């Protein structure tokens, strides 16, 4: 584990550890200094990212001049201190041995059937510093086992050594302080108040940091032993945080995923979605190419399907390419090239969600091709942080953890939006109340105090939801140029940022190059080895593109990783697909799209391919295949074959694509600024909604324990609206298409908005209401 030090000049102290003289920064703990010279002091409660508590006493050492042994994990080194560890001090050795003997008094000897066996600090340290045999003859303490701390996390209390790592994590890092040490003495145990579940998006981390097998997850419990697993580093494919994870598999099946230490991104943590949502990788995959014959899909060989697809695409008229936000950078780049070179079209979009022209302009002006402008580490030292249309806990949980770390160091957070959420509370955020859909007004009307405090050390985080609030992004752009505050756009999906830089959107070529700029065109044409004139002109995006597909002006479609129910106009897309002349789908699971496609190609999932994701910072996070023997093709591989069936050469090799994309260095030429877009917030009550972290997303399927930890589907209204509606137990929200009735929750919501989860059980906004964020809805107390 790495500790990043930001200071250049550091005060130091001179100390001696086991006779070795060293100079360490002031404030260094004995245990950290000893690590640096390769002396391992046993420990359970110590964790570099948690505050020291000296709860387990396993790390006792001797300090000259101090009569009793001291805990190395909590002892700060001071000038001239002479420390002697178990290696040179008999007192320390006996003390550590004694502590270990006490810890083992009540610890069961179930290592052979314990999940931690083989990677257990207690097992290892009992062997290195413990006594060779036990003197304890009594009966060990037992508890009924296991108990659930939440649906996913199980607790075997008799194994616990009361190190308080889990409780400190819950309180200090996650901010969900419901996990506590209960009772005293031998009965001391981890638990939650009133047996309420430990409600946290980060609960899986307590399993990983537990130094014994007390905390286990329902999904991994008794599935495997650590030494039977093959571990590979990977990048999380669930959101744009870009966490480094470790995937452990056995016999071709992923058994678990753990957070990998990446001090610049996720430190040691991951969210529960990244950790537990991987069942989809194996379940219900499309196994062979499918072609539609007489209205029915049938299996086909690869060459047959390729020729069928090539002939179909060549015969059809104007085409379009829709890439969902889940593609790797290399795959998105392949789509970008395929559309421009093979299909000769610029009708291209990666935004399978509510989007706008304003957003496309904003992305071109402020985001595309700008890497590491704002980083995770910048958050810790920022002066002010402004969140606009962005709910970090749900939409980028690791960014949320970093914000919490920043808040502890004095960063002040302001959130502009219709709801003061639980997450805002955990960030001690200041709420700039805004009716959903009229964020632009709130931004331009920000208190002069807040605006005055914004400087080049401030960060404005904009979420993907801002696209659904007309005028918000141009207001952000103005605020940024007015105050000098840096702007960071945080999409929700892992592939969006990379797809933007790979040019998988109409109007932008790779590296943020405007397709209308002659210099940009010639740079790209040179890299692609084509004639600049053969590059298409600006095409359609977002809503306009979907409308064009529906109206039939684009009649051929290449579509990958898009779920129509994620789009506000998903029905139009489905209607368009039904009418289109030819639809090629690249998918790994069946969907509404594959049911209607002319030809379906199965593609690899993240465990079967190498590639990279670009996180919201613009940081490239490469990963390699876990299952190297997998025979599935990447999207780029399929596109390359399809291109050659259409007599165009397109390299489908991931490494070659990455190299080529890297050679197209970010655009340094002129960028068009965001136009001032009209603000038109609908009158009456508007809908506030976003996707909860754990919801009905298709990539979370197959993991019921995780789904059970989701937050309940409720309608959140302000106290005033609650009164006005006559204090109903359930509230019905009605949109153009239909209504949703859910239990009421009184929360800090703008009086003119009502909040619903976007895609949770019994609350699928687009399908059920037929409108989206910031649009007018009617609210009624009671059932429909």
């Amino acid at each position, binding site marked *: 584990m790495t500790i990043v030090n930001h200071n250049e000049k550091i005060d130091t102290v001179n100390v001696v550890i086991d006779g070795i003289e060293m100079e360490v920064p002031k404030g260094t703990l004995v245990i950290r200094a000893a690590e640096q010279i390769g002396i391992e002091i046993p420990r359970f409660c110590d964790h570099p990212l948690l505050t020291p508590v000296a709860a387990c006493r396993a790390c006792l050492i001797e300090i000259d001049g101090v009569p009793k042994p001291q805990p190395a994990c909590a002892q700060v080194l001071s000038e001239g201190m002479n420390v002697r560890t178990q290696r040179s001090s008999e007192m320390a050795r006996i003390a550590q041995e004694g502590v270990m003997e006490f810890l083992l008094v009540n610890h069961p000897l179930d290592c*052979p059937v314990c999940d931690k066996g083989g990677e257990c600090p207690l097992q290892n340290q009992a062997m290195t510093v413990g006594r060779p045999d036990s003197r304890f003859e009594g009966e060990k303490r037992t508890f009924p086992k296991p108990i659930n701390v939440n649906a996913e996390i199980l607790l075997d209390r008799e194994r616990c050594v009361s190190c308080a790592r889990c409780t400190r994590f819950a309180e200090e890092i996650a901010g969900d302080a419901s996990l506590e040490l209960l009772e005293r003495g031998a009965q001391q145990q981890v638990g939650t108040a009133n047996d309420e579940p430990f409600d946290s998006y980060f609960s899986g981390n307590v399993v990983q940091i537990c130094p014994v097998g007390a905390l286990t997850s329902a999904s991994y*419990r*008794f599935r495997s*032993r650590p030494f039977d697993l093959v571990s590979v580093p990977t990048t999380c494919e669930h959101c744009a945080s870009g966490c480094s994870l470790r995937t452990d598999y056995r016999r071709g099946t992923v058994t678990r995923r753990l957070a990998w230490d990446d001090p610049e991104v996720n430190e040691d943590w991951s969210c529960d979605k990244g950790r537990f949502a991987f069942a989809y990788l194996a379940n219900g995959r499309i196994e062979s190419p499918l072609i539609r014959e007489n209205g029915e899909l049938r299996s086909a060989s690869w060459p047959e399907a390729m020729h069928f697809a090539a002939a179909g695409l060549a015969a059809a008229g104007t085409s379009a390419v829709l890439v969902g936000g889940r593609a790797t950078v290399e795959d998105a780049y392949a789509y970008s090239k395929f559309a421009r070179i093979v299909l000769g079209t610029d009708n291209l979009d990666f935004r399978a969600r509510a989007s706008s022209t304003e957003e496309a302009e904003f992305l071109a002006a402020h985001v595309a091709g700008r890497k590491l402008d704002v980083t995770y580490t910048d958050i810790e030292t920022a002066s002010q942080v402004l969140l606009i249309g962005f709910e970090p806990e749900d939409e980028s949980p690791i960014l949320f953890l970093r914000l919490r770390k920043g808040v502890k160091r004095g960063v002040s957070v302001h959130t502009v939006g219709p709801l003061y959420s639980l997450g805002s509370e955990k960030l001690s955020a200041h709420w700039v109340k805004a009716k959903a859909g009229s964020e632009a007004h709130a931004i331009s009307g920000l208190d002069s105090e807040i605006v005055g405090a914004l400087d080049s050390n401030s960060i404005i985080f904009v979420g993907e939801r801002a696209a659904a609030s007309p005028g918000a992004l141009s207001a952000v752009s103005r605020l940024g140029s007015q105050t000098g505050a840096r702007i960071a756009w945080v999409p929700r999906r892992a592939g969006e940022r990379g797809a933007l830089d790979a040019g998988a959107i109409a109007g932008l070529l790779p590296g943020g190059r405007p397709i209308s700029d002659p210099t940009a065109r010639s740079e790209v044409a040179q890299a692609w080895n084509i004639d600049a004139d053969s590059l298409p002109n600006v095409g359609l995006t977002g809503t306009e593109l979907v409308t064009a597909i529906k109206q039939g002006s684009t009649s051929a479609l290449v579509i990958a990783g898009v779920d129509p129910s994620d789009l506000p106009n998903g029905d139009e897309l489905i209607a368009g697909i039904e009418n289109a002349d030819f639809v090629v789908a690249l998918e790994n699971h069946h969907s509404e799209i594959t049911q209607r496609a002319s030809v379906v190609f199965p593609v690899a999932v993240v465990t079967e391919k190498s590639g990279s994701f670009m996180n919201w910072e613009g940081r490239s996070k490469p990963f390699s295949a876990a299952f190297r023997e997998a025979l599935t093709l990447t999207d780029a591989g399929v596109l390359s074959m399809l291109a050659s069936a259409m007599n165009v050469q397109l390299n489908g090799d991931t490494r070659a694509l990455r190299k080529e994309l890297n050679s197209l260095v970010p655009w340094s030429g002129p960028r068009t600024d965001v136009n001032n877009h009209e603000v038109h917030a609908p009158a009456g009550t508007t809908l506030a909604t976003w996707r909860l972290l754990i919801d009905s997303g298709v990539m979370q399927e197959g993991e019921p324990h995780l789904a059970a930890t989701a937050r309940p589907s409720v309608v959140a209204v302000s106290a005033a609206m609650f009164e006005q509606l006559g204090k109903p137990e359930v509230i019905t929200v009605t949109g153009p298409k239909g209504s949703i009735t859910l239990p009421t929750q009184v929360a800090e919501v703008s009086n003119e908005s009502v909040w619903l989860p976007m895609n949770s059980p019994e609350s699928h906004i687009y399908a059920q209401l037929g409108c989206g964020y910031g649009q007018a809805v009617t609210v009624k107390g009671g059932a429909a």
Partner: protein
Amino acid sequence: MPELPAAVRGFGVTFGTIFKKVVTEQYPEDSSKYPPKPRFHGRHQLNRWADGLEKCIGCELCAWACPADAIFVQGADNSDEERYSPGERYGRVYQINYTRCIFCGLCIEACPTRALTMTNEFELADNNRADLIYEKQDLLGPMLPGMLAPPHDMVPGTTDSDYYANKITGSVPQQSTPQQSTPQQGGVA
């Protein structure tokens, strides 16, 4: 005394042996006369509790202990609807590959529930490799009187600890589905 010619002397052994007890064992004709010793390491058996539930919990310790890599186990979760063993897990897949097994017995030493033991059966030869991979149904012990074929519930009012403490003496009528025969005795000791 003058020595007899060597050719005649040789017959001394032959004639002498004719009147001694025969040491040749007639296998397989008389094999029942020569049973293996009680602790002979023969084919494995997966045992059951007295009520018919399986003892194997799918912990894979046997596979782990096996020096010949002859054992393959895949565990699965018991549920209230489908229970094969007391406690949380059971062995869903259990295979022993007798082309690899060296009958060392480390697996039975490793087994924490005495689910795996060895019988005296040694006649395992076959003419193909596939049949020498014994599946769970080939290894499971016989259904003795008082046993019910799983899946079924644990004896009402008992926990897995009661099973491990050997307090179960047989199945009780409540454990069986209507179609199954009900044994006379059983319950908890």
